[in-house]
């Protein structure tokens, strides 16, 4: 007889509701444990490091507002990506769509450089949406017309977007008085998002993100479109049977997530950045994928997950300054979190069983 203490995975009769919510917490816990190990290896006091990472950044009002600033694009994109992921449409290229939104929004801001007016900011935001939609539209077209895998096309288009931005700020969008630095002019005041709290960078983008959470929630839980998205993701054949067009869902979810990512890009350039730079996002579009999953593809969950992942950005910066840790620690944190989350998610459908096989349930 084999030893009876070897744990095995046994399929649950029904998916565990509790584990759906416990799994992210378990993943966070495991991430913290492994980061302690990591800090020990790097000869840094784990307590000090964790304090620098998770407490210090948000121990001031300014720190909290910075958290909101970082969380804004993550939550916005996370909500939109959740809709697509629910439908089984794997848009991995939100980063590229964000960059296109930044390019379109930034170009609009520069076009109205000499002008003042209340209409400029809405135009910038709309341009951002259009830019993101355009980029995601290419993916949708390739998917529905040629059945090209959207994971690959959207990801590859992200690199194209990044190079396109570089091309533009080395060329037509370069600051004419900028001593040939690859960056645009600083936007005029009419092209900058209003600040919500003086002395900080907290801008109205945060409110737009909250609005997106609310709208996303209603869309997903109560509307026909949300229902169609869920059915298409769960059982595409059942969707066809009910008369929901699969390609329509692909188009809608890609345009939606692309448009929102583009909006986030426009918000970034006309908010905290205020000009076009070679890099306008520290990987928000990719991190938002983790946000969507940690948030259980639910808009409200995405809000909390967005704040958590925003903290890893802030914490990485603080740890770099106070402990001389490399900024790559942020990426390690985010990667570990997704890794442990996907591992923990196994427990939604399986349970760990010790001992005899097939005990009577």
């Amino acid at each position: 007889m084999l030893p009876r203490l070897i744990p095995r995975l046994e399929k649950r009769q029904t998916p565990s509701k509790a584990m759906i919510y416990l799994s992210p917490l378990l993943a966070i816990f495991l991430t913290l444990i492994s980061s302690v190990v990591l800090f020990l290896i790097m000869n840094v006091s784990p307590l000090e490091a964790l304090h620098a990472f998770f407490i210090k950044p948000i121990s001031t009002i300014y720190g909290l507002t910075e958290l909101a600033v970082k969380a804004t694009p993550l939550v916005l994109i996370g909500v939109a990506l959740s809709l697509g992921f629910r439908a089984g449409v794997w848009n991995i290229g939100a980063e590229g769509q964000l960059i296109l939104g930044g390019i379109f929004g930034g170009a609009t801001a520069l076009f109205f450089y000499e002008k003042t007016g209340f209409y400029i900011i809405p135009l910038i935001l709309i341009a951002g949406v259009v830019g993101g939609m355009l980029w995601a539209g290419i993916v949708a077209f390739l998917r529905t017309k040629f059945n090209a895998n959207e994971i690959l096309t959207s990801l590859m288009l992200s690199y194209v977007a990044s190079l396109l931005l570089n091309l533009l700020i080395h060329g037509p969008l370069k600051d004419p008085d900028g001593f040939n630095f690859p960056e645009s002019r600083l936007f005029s005041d009419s092209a900058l998002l209003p600040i919500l709290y003086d002395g900080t960078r907290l801008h109205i983008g945060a409110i737009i993100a909250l609005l997106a959470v609310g709208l996303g929630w209603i869309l997903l839980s109560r509307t026909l479109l949300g229902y169609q998205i869920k059915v298409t993701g769960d059982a595409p054949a059942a969707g066809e049977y009910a008369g929901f067009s699969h390609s329509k869902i692909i188009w809608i979810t890609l345009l939606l997530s692309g448009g929102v990512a583009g909006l986030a890009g426009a918000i970034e350039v006309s908010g905290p950045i205020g000009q076009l730079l070679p890099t306008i996002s520290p990987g928000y579009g990719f991190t938002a994928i983790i946000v969507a999953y940690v948030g259980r593809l639910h808009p409200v969950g995405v809000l909390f997950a967005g704040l958590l992942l925003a903290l890893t950005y802030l914490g990485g910066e603080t740890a770099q300054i106070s402990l001389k840790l490399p900024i790559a620690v942020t990426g390690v944190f985010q990667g570990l979190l997704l890794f442990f989350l996907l591992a923990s998610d196994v427990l939604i459908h399986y349970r760990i069983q010790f001992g005899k096989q097939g005990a009577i349930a």
Partner: protein
Amino acid sequence: MPQSSDYLIELKGICKAFPGVLANDDIDLKIKAGEVHALLGENGAGKSTLVKMIYGILKQDAGTIHFNGDLVDIKTPAIARELGVAMVFQHFSLFDSLTVVENISLGMDHSSDLATLADQITELSKRYGLPLDPHRHVYTLSVGERQRIEIIRCLLQEPKLLIMDEPTSVLTPQEVEKLFVTLKRLSEEGMAILYISHKLDEIKALCHNATILRLGKKVGTVSVADESTQSLAAMMMGEELKELKHPEAVELGDTRLEVKDLSLPADDPLGISLRNINLQVRGGEVVGIAGVAGNGQDELLRALNGEQRTLDSIDSIELEGKAVGKLNPNSRRVNFGLASVPEKRLGHGATPDMSLVDNAFLTAYQHLKLLKNGLIDYAKTRQFAEKIIADYGVKTPNSDVPAGSLSGGNLQKFIVGRELSQNPDILVIAQPTWGVDAGAAQTIRQAIRELAAKGAAVLVISQDLDELMEITDRIGAICGGVVSEFYPTSEMSIDKVGMLMAGVSLEEGVSDVA
């Protein structure tokens, strides 16, 4: 080996549990050499679980197996084969692109050269009336011929016990008869056969004894000769069957569903292309299409309900006299009252991870106006879901459980209930009672007849010939994507329908059936 027992194989107190279900509860089973023993029970009674333990695929939680009087521990199928147990599965494991002999050689425990093997195959096939050319490629063979490969593969091991898991579910009646001749010959030569089925007439025709299982428990072992089909059915289902009330003849209305020269090439190379299909269903009429699974039934249903548009010939499908080839399932449902029930329940007729309430909404939201100001009216949808559950006796803790957690039969009741509750004008329904318990099957058949009596046109696509003979007015069959002529059911016999299922036209006569 010394014969220390009267029985070839003896199972005692076998128990096997899966999470949430006790699949086998204290089962005894004894089979003598040369005996054809039936294992009888409805879907989910625990038949397959039991034989998987005999064949070493599953391990029992409790109980013993004696083979030839010796206590054995059948850990793997290889051990089972060594003992002399062979099994023909319901689903074949054959490579389409290889020849018969190549396929058989792949499954052998001991290798041998192909030429010798081919000779052995030819010899066995002659001896047992299983015509099979060892050098044909599998993709060119019919389902019946493929089954012969599996049987010969088993016979090559010279087994003492042959297990057959529902071997006739994929065969036409004529193929079934040939199979029975072979099985009887094997039994006369001393081989024990464990024959799993829920078809009572087959068991009457073939088996000596029968062990009946119900809900994982053994009901009893009986001598088949002493029992009638009715008494076997009663033991199997635990209740007497109600006779279907045949409604008085309804005056037929206009043609509501018409298919004219419908041809539809298959999407993928292994799919079935529909060829020149013609059929009409009038209001008040139930028309049946018989056929062995995988002959184009699914493709036909998808063309009729609009999942597969027929853009090349938009007028090949007409509802209420109007060409609908361009319309999607939704417009056909809303404008013409067309409802359909696909054969595959999980993932086609219902979405597994969503609740029954959500699944009730799937096809009913427009007809029952379940959208209010653009938002889903969940209160009303829940009422509808609960009405289906009550009316069709769906066994479920509540309406919030995911559809995937229901048993196949219960989910079938829910899906059929959802479509029938919307009072469709035209209904296309595939395998309406597949896997459903006998009582509920009768409810569904009754509901189908009543729907027709109200003037609806009903097309039933089914593998279950008895069911079709019982509820249809006219009957035809589909074979290889071609639909036969339709004949009044009252003038048809099971044999004649069987010929149609094999693709033989009745006008050409019986001589074509080789």
